């Protein structure tokens, strides 16, 4: 691991009208690291990574990439800077073909006199190839995404982000809608991507998923950072407690057999 | 001085024929120093028109001028206005008998069926046996009466000879062309106003039949006048809308001021405008003619 973080967010605050969604959150991501962001519902995880990805502008706070302060006007800028995101709500359009989804927003073009046209052949070829590399055999590149399964869609989204040279890959609960086998697949993919030196921000509710692939863990609670810990510093149970506020949990879980 | 009259027509907002009447009432208003308001149902819905008449009566004007687009619909509201002591003059469509029954002072106009019949007689004299009635406003009852009168004068069934042309000029032109192509024995055309006349002229020009087919139209416009001159159109039926706007204002003003009123209804039309008398008309076509 290098010493300067790929991306560093410092004391980010974000307010929506009367709702204070983030109230001072700091997180950094190193190359090749999988940084897990944990937290209860509404803790502000999605809001935080949307800020990182240029969807929201922080109300206050600083974003640094490779040590330099940056400000993203829109998701395109963040993407161009190497921050790619696979959203919880997926950002896939079911009515459109896999290729068109794969390239959406960054379509390859070919000059033709003064005009620039889509380079469909190239787009199709690369899409098929990248999907095959991720272990998915497409019927045809113009197959609609609506005909894929949920796990396959996640994989398309991840493959897209990786292909476009993401330096930081943000995954917002990629496993929440998936079954066990598909989850394992996605976790394996994360592992593979991490090994190529990409920094990963992995958001989840599920402590076990986090423990499986995470190198560092940050827990958010009601818009604030509760703390950051390296792998091995924490037991799953401790993480669980931090996420939900220990006392209450203990009481409940005892009545249910302590296995929650 | 400063009396207020209301003219209520049945025409939708966009009907261009009524411009002449609007111009006439503006002129008459200026000359007599009275205000004349023009009102109409925006979509041409006669039920709305009845409401407007009721509303006009409620606003207490010195007189109401209205068309009898449909006697059944308008009898009630107009009779009400008369009963309130508001002098009413009917214009344009409707008959003198209907006007009397309502209790209006007089009627200035041209009954639609009779006008169509008159046109038909001219066409018959010219040897028309099979015709096309281009109806751009088929949902309006008066329009059907014109075609019906024309057919009756020729002594033929109306049948499919009246087409629902719609209001889009491109489509009207195409429909006329299509009809003429499939019914090559057609030797007469009746259009019901500028909306249908202009595209029909274009259609005849495009198919080279201009002048070959006996062509009559209702109402006038610059284009129609030009077509009358070059022989594409044989006659235009002019009901002299200017008079329908101008006269009632004058009559009502004089009634209000001096209590005088003519004893009889006035037929403003039909006047037939042909090549012979077009010169007079042309200058003001679409504005005062």
């Amino acid at each position, binding site marked *: 691991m290098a010493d300067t973080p790929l991306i560093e967010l410092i004391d980010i605050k974000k307010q929506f009208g009367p709702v204070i969604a983030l109230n001072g959150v700091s997180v950094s991501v190193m190359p090749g690291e999988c940084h897990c962001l944990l937290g209860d519902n509404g803790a502000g995880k999605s809001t935080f990574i949307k800020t990182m990805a240029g969807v929201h502008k922080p109300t206050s706070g600083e974003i640094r990439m490779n040590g330099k302060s940056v400000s993203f006007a829109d998701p395109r800028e963040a993407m161009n800077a190497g921050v790619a995101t696979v959203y919880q709500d997926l950002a896939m359009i079911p009515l459109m073909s896999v290729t068109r989804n794969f390239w959406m927003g960054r379509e390859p073009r070919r000059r033709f006199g003064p005009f620039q046209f889509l380079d469909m052949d190239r787009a199709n070829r690369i899409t098929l190839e990248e999907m095959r590399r991720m272990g998915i055999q497409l019927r045809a590149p113009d197959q609609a995404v609506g005909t894929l399964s949920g796990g396959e869609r996640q994989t398309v989204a991840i493959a897209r982000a990786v292909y476009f040279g993401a330096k930081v890959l943000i995954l917002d609960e990629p496993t929440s809608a998936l079954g066990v086998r598909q989850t394992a697949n996605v976790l394996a993919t994360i592992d593979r991507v991490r090994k190529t030196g990409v920094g990963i921000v992995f958001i989840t509710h599920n402590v076990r998923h986090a423990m499986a692939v995470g190198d560092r863990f940050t827990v958010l609670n009601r818009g604030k950072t509760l703390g950051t810990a390296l792998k091995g510093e924490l037991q799953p149970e401790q993480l669980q407690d931090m996420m939900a506020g220990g006392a209450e949990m203990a009481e409940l879980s005892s009545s249910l057999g302590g296995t929650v | 001085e400063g009396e207020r009259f209301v003219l209520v027509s049945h025409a939708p907002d966009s009907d261009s024929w009524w411009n002449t009447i609007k111009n006439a009432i503006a002129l008459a208003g200026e000359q007599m120093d009275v205000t004349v308001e023009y009102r109409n149902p925006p979509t041409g819905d006669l039920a709305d028109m009845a409401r407007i008449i009721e509303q006009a009566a*409620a606003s207490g004007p010195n007189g109401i001028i209205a068309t009898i687009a449909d006697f059944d619909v308008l009898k009630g509201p107009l009779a009400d206005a008369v*009963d309130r002591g508001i002098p009413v003059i009917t214009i344009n469509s409707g008959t003198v008998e209907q006007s009397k029954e309502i209790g209006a002072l007089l009627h200035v106009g041209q009954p639609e069926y009779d006008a169509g019949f008159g046109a038909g007689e001219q066409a018959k004299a010219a040897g028309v046996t099979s015709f096309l009635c281009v109806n751009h406003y088929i949902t309006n009852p008066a329009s059907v009466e014109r075609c019906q009168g024309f057919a009756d004068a020729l002594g033929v069934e109306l049948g499919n000879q009246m087409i629902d042309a719609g209001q889009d000029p491109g489509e009207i032109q195409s429909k006329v062309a299509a009809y003429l192509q499939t019914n090559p024995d057609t030797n007469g055309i009746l259009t019901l106003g500028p909306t249908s006349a202009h595209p029909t002229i274009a259609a005849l020009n495009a198919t080279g039949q201009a002048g070959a087919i006996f062509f009559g139209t209702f109402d006038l416009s610059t284009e129609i006048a030009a077509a009358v001159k070059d022989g594409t159109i044989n006659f235009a039926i002019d009901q002299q809308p200017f008079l329908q706007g101008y006269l009632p204002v004058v009559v009502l003003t004089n009634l209000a001021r001096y209590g005088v009123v003519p004893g009889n209804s006035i037929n403003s039309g039909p006047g037939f405008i042909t090549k012979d008398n077009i010169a007079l008309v042309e200058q003001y076509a679409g504005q005062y003619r």
Partner: protein
Amino acid sequence: MVDQPPGAPTADERVQRQSTLRRAFVRPELGAMAGTVLVFIYFAIVAGGTGMFAADGIMNWGVVSAQFAIIAVGACLLMIAGEFDLSVGSMIGFAGIVIALLSVHLGWPMWASIIAAFIVAMLIGAANGYLVIKTGLPSFIVTLASLYILRGLTIYLSISTTRQTIIGGVREAAQGDWLATLFGGKVLGFIFYWLADMGWIATFQAGNRAGQPVVDGIPMLMIWAIALIIFAHVLLTRTRFGNWIYAAGGDAKAARYVGVPVDRVKIAMFVFSAFCATIFAACQVMEFGSAAADRGLLKEFEAIIAVVIGGALLTGGYGSVIGAALGALIFGVVQQGLFFAGVESSLFRVFLGVILLLAVILNTYIRRLITGER
């Protein structure tokens, strides 16, 4: 489900409290109420002296508003149930022609013609609904098709049987018919005679009705409007079926899961919309004594506009009959008021468009406050 709204009910330090006053005022009809007040103030100023607020003036815009209200009520319930009906206008023309054709042309007794028209119209409404439900197509498309089909049939029927697009003589045919008076007559005349005697409303000055009050009764049209508003309001807010209407429009799948017969509810609302259109047509035909093929043109838009001004959500599940009725009132007052105020009549549409935009922006804001929608 994924991004949850702020958990308002449990005290949450992250949400600033809303004032209770604001919440007390926040109702679906609020926008329409504010609009109504504004519109009345406006016309009181610009047209106060023109007789717009005399007895006959009030009757004038009252009747126009009642007309709008009749179709707005139907459109309102249907819209809340999550669908809409572009064929209302064509249905008005169609039902009118059916009544006139049967009674005048075929010589049926008037009551039978009216009932037949209701049956036919409601069957067509049911067919609309059935198609929407069975094919899953948007009601925009299905009823757009009916708009064309019905208008075409109306013209075709009247032309092919009578060679006219207007059929008169209905009043004569309706003479003494018991059902016809339910649509054509006026009621409560004695009150107005009494009011006139007391000098509180004007009387005719001349003509064969001199001495009679200028308003001699409340037309059945208004009675129908009021009855429909009350009926629909009670149905919507006070009955089980009303809850189902909201549920069907709010989320048809969810409603279906808990046992709400969504299909029946939606079809019933299409039928009700056709029913309202037929009432409109029957009143019009009886009042004016004739039916014409162009009746009701663009009325579908006017109904939708009144409902939307009244605070209903175009996509269903939210709205109120009172709001729709106020929307119809605004519509009627503005339309007739502009005449009273002597404004160039072509500007009416401009006004209407602007009012629609403003109302809908205000309503959206109010709705978000109420439902937590984002």
